[in-house]
């Protein structure tokens, strides 16, 4: 034993203790930094790509609108307009290349424009039509004109046409409203996420309506009313297990039960929402129970001692105090559900949906599934659309998580 005085012995150990503290702080800080860097890289790469998709290259055409709105051949009007703009085009091949600088959907846009501007029938007016995705990629700089023709997918003749359009200021990028208003399409310039957004929206509504009341009631029953015995322990273990089950398993369950046994429609947001409900329920129940448990027992005793029944105690006092935690759990569960792809694939929400769903029974797809589908497509222009869809999904998530924070603040009661 050393005979140093007590305080000196403490001093000799202090250095090591302070060093440990510094090391721990540095380690914690670097861990945080690493996380922030990864997040930053992810966001920057997605945002830089995705933002391009919010712009779309448009070409200004001078079109002589037809009198006969319904039976006019807009395809040929479009072709004629283009031929008039570039008069010295002779061969069939050159014509085909010329027509290819506008989107295959341009004739539909022209038809729609004519219908909306029927008072201008017969006159020659300026119409902005969507350029094809290859032109779009070139204008946005996603491909370079120095690339091989196979890569840039535009011939030298087409490049000359585009240069002339740029010279005359007849081509420019504008806000891509079609991205938010259209359904899916084989043509990237016409493809939009409206069907996926509506699908996600309907699925989430169904999920919220089913999972929130069921989950909260189950949590209240298990926490406040159920006797504590082997059976409830067994149920608790199973709920915790369910929260960790891979989501595709819920998809298979949905396929087997909702589609095969109940005969519900395939690809419907209703079924999607029901499958997501199965997935979200454990999360809501676990979070709900935790926040009910956190309510001080003195509040329960106060109410019971006044002669409140168990149900009154729970609904008048315990649940309001637990509400912030319950809501946070529900929103976190929903936020997980919004990003879920695998279970939706199983019940057929992976379909190519052009029409925007209007009810929960219409075929639909969902945002993460749309990302999955587009990420698989070969066209260059789908790459930026994939990134843009991810941005929209992230936007949804940010809104939901903010909502969780706001609700928690609003319902928080200090005691």
């Amino acid at each position, binding site marked *: 034993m050393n005979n140093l005085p007590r305080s000196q012995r403490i001093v000799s150990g202090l250095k090591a203790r302070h060093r440990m503290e510094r090391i721990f702080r540095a380690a914690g800080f670097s861990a945080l930094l690493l996380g922030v860097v990864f997040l930053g890289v992810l966001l920057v790469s997605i945002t830089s790509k995705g933002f391009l998709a919010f712009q779309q290259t448009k070409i200004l055409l001078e079109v002589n609108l037809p009198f006969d709105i319904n039976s006019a051949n807009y395809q040929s009007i479009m072709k004629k307009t283009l031929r008039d703009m570039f008069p010295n085009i002779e061969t069939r091949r050159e014509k085909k290349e010329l027509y290819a600088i506008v989107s295959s959907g341009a004739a539909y846009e022209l038809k729609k424009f004519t219908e909306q501007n029927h008072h201008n029938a017969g006159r020659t007016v300026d119409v902005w039509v969507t350029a094809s995705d290859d032109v779009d990629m070139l204008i946005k700089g996603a491909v370079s004109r120095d690339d091989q023709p196979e890569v840039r997918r535009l011939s030298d003749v087409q490049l000359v046409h585009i240069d002339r359009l740029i010279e005359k200021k007849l081509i420019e990028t504008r806000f891509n409203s079609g991205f938010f208003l259209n359904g899916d399409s084989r043509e990237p310039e016409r493809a939009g996420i409206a069907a996926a957004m509506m699908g996600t929206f309907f699925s989430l509504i169904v999920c919220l309506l089913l999972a929130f009341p069921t989950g909260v009631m189950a949590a209240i029953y298990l926490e406040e009313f159920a006797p504590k015995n082997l059976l409830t322990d067994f149920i608790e273990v199973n709920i915790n297990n369910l929260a960790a089950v891979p989501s595709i398993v819920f998809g298979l369950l949905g396929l087997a039960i909702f589609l095969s046994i109940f005969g519900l429609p395939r690809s419907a947001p209703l079924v999607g929402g029901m499958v997501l409900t199965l997935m979200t329920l454990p999360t809501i129940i676990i979070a709900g129970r935790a926040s009910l448990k956190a309510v001080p027992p003195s509040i329960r*005793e106060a109410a*019971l001692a006044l*002669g409140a029944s168990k149900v009154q105690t729970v609904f008048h006092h315990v649940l309001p105090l637990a509400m912030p935690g319950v809501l946070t759990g529900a929103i976190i569960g929903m936020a997980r559900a919004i990003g879920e792809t695998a279970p939706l694939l199983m019940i057929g929400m992976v379909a190519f949906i052009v029409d925007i769903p209007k009810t929960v029974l219409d075929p639909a797809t969902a945002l993460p599934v749309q990302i999955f589908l587009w990420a698989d497509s070969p066209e260059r222009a789908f790459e930026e659309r994939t990134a843009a869809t991810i941005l929209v999904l992230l936007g949804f998530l940010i809104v939901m998580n903010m909502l969780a924070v706001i609700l928690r603040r609003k319902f928080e009661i200090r005691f």
Partner: protein
Amino acid sequence: MTTMALVNPACGGITPPSAIFTEIPTESETRMQTRDLNVFYGGNQALHKIELDIPRHKVTALIGPSGCGKSTFLRCLNRMNDVVENCQVQGTVMLDDQDVYSPYLDVVLLRARVGMVFQKPNPFPKSIFDNVAYGPRIHGIAKCRDKLDEIVMESLRRARLFDEVKDRLHAPGTSLSGGQQQRLCIARAIAVEPEVVLMDEPCSSLDPIATGGIEELIAELKDEYTIVMVTHSMQQAARISQKTAYFHMGHLVEVGETEEVFSNPIDQRTRDYVTGRIG
């Protein structure tokens, strides 16, 4: 004074004929009594054969060292032990001539008749008004808004809190000081018009001045209510109680007039405790 029947005729099963809407004009000396009361927490016996009479319109003090079972006993009187897991109660507890642990008894009605104030002030995180109005509301005591206002004001007045909070009845109850919160809890308990008020160390988290206020209040309340109070302070028991019961290790060692117990205790353990040698 008439007594409400404790038995809820709606609770199903066979109702013994004697228990249907019995109005018993009891005015006996004893309001509550326990006979052969044993309480177990799992395998541990917390109370052994407690036989105690609670006199009407008096303050009964339960004293004894920590863990001696006095709070457990108190909580048997309005069946608050029901919510404690593993807690088993054997024996009889009578309120007037009704068995508190009878399967025919509605515990909601029992707790409306036997109110409770806890050790730590536990106001609801609601306004002062709503705290006091909660009991009358759930029991449907007040028929209209004016009547409810009256009950709330009167309860606050009787709890000697009214003058301090009359301008801010809608401020949260949790914004009051500790002593005020405890008086709020007393007001909340007496707003239900209970017959018995159980107090579990109501002053233990309060400073001497607030304690003095509560003690005066208890002394006043005993004219209308029967009060059973657990306390750690022997001075407090001596000051405000008329009857004192000394608990030790789950046994009721001695019970008697407060003056007797303090000045001339029979049991050696009581003597050691009240003279401050142990405890």
